[in-house]
């Protein structure tokens, strides 16, 4: 803790010295909003063109800028909005509430559009994903998805074909802190991972940090995904929605008390079950019914008590539900069963914004988050022969859950234009319930009611942080910070201090050099090996046996603004080392070993090390009729565990040497726009046996083998039959497989895909409608989803033997898939 105290005191002392050096000055503060709906604009720029000093709005649209008493020429700007200029003589502290007007397509031709220039920002490794662009992009089955859009950014990789897993700079899927309105979400996938839980209609901003993490964030090693919901239109009631192939959406928002409070509610539901239930009933002649659906419901209300106080409440709930049932009946026998599989998140956040003074802003937040997976099976049968009746009832339920209660207080302090200080405290109480199994069975003779409960773990994770965005002259700026944590489990406390540094040096007006160094700790692990987005991954805490994860990352790069700010180019190189990684022991997964042993700690290998390095290039065009980006990633990702792969380093499953994405959208006019994406990625690393060899049965584990019977005689050594050995290598029996290239030593075929979409928009009396027609995988590339060995064993009547003709097969699940959806706004 001494190190933590010294770090904080040094930073405070440093800042105080700078602050005291300021001349007589006044503060301009206030909010920047969207004129059309009154929503706060996050990261809007406020620049005094006279002095060259400026500020940006925080996550609630608040800013504060301290300037000397003098004439000021403020320019307030935000990407996609018309900038606004305000001139006045600053002679006292001033509060402004400025609304900016969104650009229309026609105005793009007339005025130069403002863009957020990466070159001006000290932040490294961060990308803002424009929701408006995401909505134009073609999507699988027409379901627009922000996570899929993020996967198209350099340094971010998807997992398997079509899934929403995020793998950032060599990190695992558990190393991403995904927050909706500041509340962590633990599982963000629907339908086996093909769709994310985020409904784009309810979102206002999406920002991803891959490195250079600001000190206010912590708890994960590889990325922070900060997603903010819309606040609701303060001025007028409006709605939007869509009808697609598999789901429909509807969002409604409007004022509760005009100008003071507003609401937004947004829902989405699939209707796959509406098709599958009747089809399965017909196919089974009424004996069985199978269905699946998912839904999301987002809501938010906010109320402005005064210019100084504002209250928000937001929630999200979403579930995937798979269910099946069946019934068989005849004269003296009946049989019934029900199966259920469901998983989903519930989150809620209550936050209070308060402006304490002209340059001190606070946000107090209480949060709740729960993810749970529940599986159940019930069955009953009844047999009666007239004299006796036998009934048998069986039930099984499996529950896995993680639940958080959290609170945090964040302060934004703006002592001068050269300093933007953020500090705060946060704490989370985690409850881990990796797996509980309940079994009950009742029959005429027996009654069993058993609960098998894996360890319940309760942990406290608390942190304090301090960060200062410093500007020294026009050329140098930096974001310095420290994030310190305390982790409590079983009355044992663990402390960490994580320094954060991100710096920028302007080489010219349009070119800047940037560098960053960060350390991160993570006190939570994910037991996973599915890689397919199935909800069978288990969240578990760091314990004394399974320590926390740690990483450090250094990055350096160049940002440039090209062709009069029309193009933004960033080139970054990075090196990241991770320790404390865990993995299932060889041969284990959710079904084998994960639950049977009673303790998950027994099923994992600890002490893993990861190494990731590479370079990323991102060229973006954010303005004009044609927008989009080209991203390229060159990377190497390694893992090393003492007891895996004989202790040798091996490529990470998603080690992808080359990753390219091209995203383009073009608006021809108000009515028609087109969009296309093309992606290419080196094939995933997988483990495949290349050979096999016959094995013999273990003589020391065979009854009667080489052991004398009562007469003193021994039995011969048993063979494993050779025919069985040959089929073994494709999955059966006792033969041994040879992995000549070790773990993940084999590459799937490269992945590439082209998606195209066209949007037809038309003004209607009641509002606006858009038809979107899209094609996923336009040239129907059969990209590999998985490889597997197939024994192809056939009985040969001539020889009386089973001939095996094993083959390696590729499973491709998405060929060309056209889609259509209808969107409306009123």
């Amino acid at each position, binding site marked *: 803790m001494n190190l933590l105290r010294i770090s904080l005191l040094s930073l405070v002392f440093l800042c105080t010295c700078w602050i005291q050096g300021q001349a007589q000055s006044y503060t301009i503060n206030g909010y920047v909003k969207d004129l059309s709906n009154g929503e706060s604009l996050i990261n809007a720029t406020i620049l005094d063109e006279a002095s060259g000093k400026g500020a940006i709005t925080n996550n609630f649209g608040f800013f504060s800028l301290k300037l000397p008493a003098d004439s000021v020429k403020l320019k307030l700007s935000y990407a996609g909005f018309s900038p606004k200029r305000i001139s006045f003589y600053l002679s006292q502290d001033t509060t402004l509430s400025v609304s900016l007007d969104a650009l229309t397509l026609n105005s793009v031709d007339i005025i130069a559009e403002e863009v957020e220039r990466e070159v001006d920002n000290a932040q490294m490794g961060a990308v803002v994903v424009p929701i408006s662009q995401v909505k134009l992009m073609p999507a699988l*089955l027409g379901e627009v998805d922000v996570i899929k859009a993020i996967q198209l950014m350099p340094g971010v990789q998807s997992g398997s074909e079509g899934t929403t897993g995020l793998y950032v700079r060599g990190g695992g899927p558990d190393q991403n802190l995904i927050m909706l309105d500041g509340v962590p979400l633990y599982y963000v996938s629907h339908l086996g991972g093909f769709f994310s839980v985020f409904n784009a209609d309810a979102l206002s901003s999406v920002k991803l940090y891959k490195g250079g993490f600001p000190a206010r964030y912590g708890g994960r090693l590889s990325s922070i995904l900060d997603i903010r919901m819309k606040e609701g239109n303060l001025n007028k009631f409006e709605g939007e929605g869509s009808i697609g*192939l598999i789901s429909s959406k509807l969002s409604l928002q409007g004022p509760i008390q005009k100008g003071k409070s507003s609401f937004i509610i947004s829902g989405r539901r699939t209707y796959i079950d509406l098709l599958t239930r009747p089809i399965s009933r017909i196919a089974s002649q009424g004996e069985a019914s199978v269905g699946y659906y998912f839904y999301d419901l987002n809501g938010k209300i906010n109320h402005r008590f005064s210019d100084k106080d504002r209250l928000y409440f937001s929630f999200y709930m979403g579930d995937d539900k798979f269910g099946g049932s069946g019934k068989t009946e005849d004269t003296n026998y009946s049989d019934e069963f029900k199966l259920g599989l469901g998983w989903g998140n519930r989150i809620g956040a209550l936050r209070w914004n308060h402006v304490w003074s002209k340059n001190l802003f606070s946000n107090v937040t209480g949060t709740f988050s729960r993810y749970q997976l529940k599986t159940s099976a019930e069955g009953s049968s009844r047999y009666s022969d007239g004299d006796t009746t036998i009934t048998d009832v069986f039930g099984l339920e499996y529950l896995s859950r993680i639940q958080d209660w959290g609170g945090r207080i964040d302060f934004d302090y703006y002592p001068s234009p050269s300093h933007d200080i953020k500090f705060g405290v946060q704490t989370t109480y985690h409850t881990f319930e990796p797996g509980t199994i309940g079994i009950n069975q009742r029959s005429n003779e027996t*009654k069993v009611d058993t609960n098998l409960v894996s360890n319940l773990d309760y942990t406290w994770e608390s942190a304090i942080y301090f960060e200062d965005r410093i500007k020294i002259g026009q050329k140098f700026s930096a974001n310095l910070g420290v994030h310190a944590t305390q982790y409590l489990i079983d009355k044992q406390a663990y402390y960490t201090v994580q320094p954060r540094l991100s710096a920028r040096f302007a080489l010219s007006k349009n070119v800047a050099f940037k560098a960053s160094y960060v350390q991160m700790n993570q006190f939570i692990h994910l037991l996973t*090996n*599915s890689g397919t987005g*199935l909800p069978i991954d288990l969240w578990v805490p760091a314990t004394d046996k399974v320590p926390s994860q740690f990483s450090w990352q250094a990055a350096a790069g160049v940002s440039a603004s090209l062709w009069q700010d029309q193009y933004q180019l960033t080139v970054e190189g990075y090196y990241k080392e991770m320790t404390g990684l865990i993995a*299932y022991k*060889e*041969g*284990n*997964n959710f*079904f*084998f070993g994960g639950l049977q042993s*009673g303790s998950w700690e027994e099923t994992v290998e600890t002490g893993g090390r990861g190494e990731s390095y590479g370079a990323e290039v991102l060229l973006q065009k954010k303005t004009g009729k044609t927008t989009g980006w080209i991203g390229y990633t060159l990377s190497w990702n390694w893992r090393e565990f003492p007891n*895996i792969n*004989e202790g040798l380093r091996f490529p990470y499953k998603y080690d992808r040497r080359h990753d390219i994405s091209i995203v383009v959208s073009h608006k021809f006019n108000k009515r028609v726009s087109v969009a296309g994406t093309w992606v290419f990625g080196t094939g995933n690393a997988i483990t*495949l046996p290349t*050979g*096999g*060899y*016959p*094995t*013999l049965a*273990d*003589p*020391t*584990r065979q009854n009667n083998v*080489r052991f004398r019977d*009562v007469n003193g005689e021994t039995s*011969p*050594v048993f*063979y494993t039959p*050779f025919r069985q*050995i*040959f089929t*073994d290598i494709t*999955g059966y029996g*006792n033969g041994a497989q*040879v*992995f*000549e290239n070790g*773990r993940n030593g*084999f590459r799937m*075929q490269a992945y590439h895909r082209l998606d195209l979409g066209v949007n037809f928009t038309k003004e209607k009396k009641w509002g606006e409608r858009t038809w979107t027609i899209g094609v996923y995988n336009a040239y129907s590339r*059969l990209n590999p989803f998985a490889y*597997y060995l*197939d024994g192809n064993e056939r009985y040969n009547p001539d020889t009386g033997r089973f*001939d095996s003709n*094993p*083959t*390696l097969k*590729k*499973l*491709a*699940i*998405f060929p*060309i*898939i*056209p889609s*259509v959806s209808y969107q409306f706004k009123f």
Partner: protein
Amino acid sequence: MNKYIAIIFLSSLFFSACQRDLNIPLPQHEPRLTLYAFLQAGEPIDLYVMRSFGILENLEDKDVAVADAKVELYKNGSLIDELQYKDTTFTDTLWTYTFSPGQGEPDTTIYYTEVLNGAKYFPSKILDAPKAGETYRFVATHPTYGTAEGETTIPAIPDLSGVKFYADSLSFVDSYGDEMNWSALDLKINDPVGEGNHYNFIIGVDYEVEDFQGGMEETRDWKWPGLEIISDPDGYTYIQNSPLSDEDFDGQISDKLWWFDLPESFRWSGQEPREVNYNRLLIQGISLSKEYAKFQEKLQLQTYNRLSGIESAFVPSEPIIIPNNVTGGYGVIGSFNVAEEYILELQ
């Protein structure tokens, strides 16, 4: 417009329901020699020589037997013999599967014969049987499959004098509401310091059972502790598949208790009720060389966790790489030593 939208909608349903399996090639595997030797203290030496094969190779069992290798045997570093191939196809190939007859059913024992072509090598002369502490090294050379070699040191015989038996030492009510009385074996053995051996135990019972002619027949049954270890009085059962490792014994001290239900453990389920007289209980302790135990442990894991076909694409388990101590090839050269003690007179 509506017509086109309907066509696109129907096409979407059609294509999205489609999946395709495509055969793709796999890199070539270069076959290498595979050696197996499980030397037992006091028993004759033999060695199996085979070859590995490509995962997609379609071959007959005879294709993997290697009968023309040159095999040298070293004892404690000195060449003592060149082993010779001997065709044992006939003697090693008889299989018998016995299906327990149901009540009133005739004996349904099925005899099944499979011709095997294992290549087994034997000493060319009479050699002393292996003893604890001796190191044996096999070097096999073949013009096509190269040279493979491996060695093992015969482990010390386990000292079972510390094994103790506690009759009916655990009483509990099981999940069916039945009162159970379990006996316990304290598996305390004299584990030699410095040897990284692993251990297996087997318990046997000598008993007399009524034969089909109405007389009494003396016989012996074996039971593996690994099949039924009770770890706590609540009746939670788990299965210990792999041998107990050297670390479990921490030199000479063990806290491994093997619980079992006596004599129910030795009664075959479904067996016709017959008169049984239990005579005595005996235990065998087997010490295994570490490399052999590890090989078997990983092999067993690989076997149990291997999924076949398309389901493996969706629920994969982490792949298991089997360690071996054969340089230049595959397989294992291992050894074991067996001790046997009577621990209880039952009558």
